[in-house]
């Protein structure tokens, strides 16, 4: 099961993904994220992959779909904390430029 925990400060929406991202869990994840994205139209959406144990190309679809929505209102999407394996997949998809190098301060 893939899950998403959301922190929203209006400007910036941080989505901490966890578990396994595949075609099955995608439907739930998409729903949870898009409600926030469409209601708050944050300038920056941060997709945090630290706790993601597995993903396949469905995860790429998730990133691209959110980017499409964000760009439709002038927002931006970055991905962070991508592990070796998730990074390999993101780079295979040609999305290396979306990886944020910035260290985020964890404020919960």
């Amino acid at each position, binding site marked *: *099961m893939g899950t998403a925990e959301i922190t929203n400060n209006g400007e910036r929406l941080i989505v901490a993904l966890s578990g*396994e991202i*595949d*075609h*099955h869990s*995608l439907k739930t994840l*998409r729903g949870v994220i898009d409600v926030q994205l469409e209601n708050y139209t944050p300038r920056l959406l941060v997709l945090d992959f630290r706790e993601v144990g*597995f993903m*396949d*190309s*469905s995860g*790429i*679809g*998730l990133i*691209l*779909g959110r980017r499409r929505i964000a760009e439709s209102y002038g927002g931006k999407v970055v991905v962070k904390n991508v592990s*070796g*394996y998730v990074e390999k*997949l993101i780079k*295979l*998809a040609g999305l290396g430029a979306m990886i944020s190098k910035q260290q985020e301060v964890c404020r919960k």
Partner: protein
Amino acid sequence: MIINNFMRLIIPSRSQNEAFARAAVTAFAAGLDPTVEEINDIKAATSEAVTNSIVHAYADRIGNIEILARILEPDIFYIRIKDKGCGIADIKQAMTPLFTTCAEGERAGLGFAVMESFMDKLRVTSKPGKGTSVTMTKRIKSRYEQN
């Protein structure tokens, strides 16, 4: 090639079986003592092929998916994922990175690209109306060899 071990699994094309299928296959592949990276590669490739059968082959119905995995002596992992779904008319086009017939479902069109780059060999055979078979192999380098 000598078949050292094999397993056969038949599952209905329900999306909750995606996680089960890749867990079962990776548990079987563990017999070759793969590295974490090799296991992730097999897991992703399996997930892509099984998902394709669920999403594309049986787009509007539930059908069976057959997974056959083999360990070929001494160090080759073999997997075949077969469905009796709609089939693929133009395999070359289907395998082109970013090509998808299901953009509204947010498919990235990268399933075959993942299978191709994470496994050593990929072979797709398909007949429209009859179904599709995806065969992949990967050589598992022993930990000893990698050190």
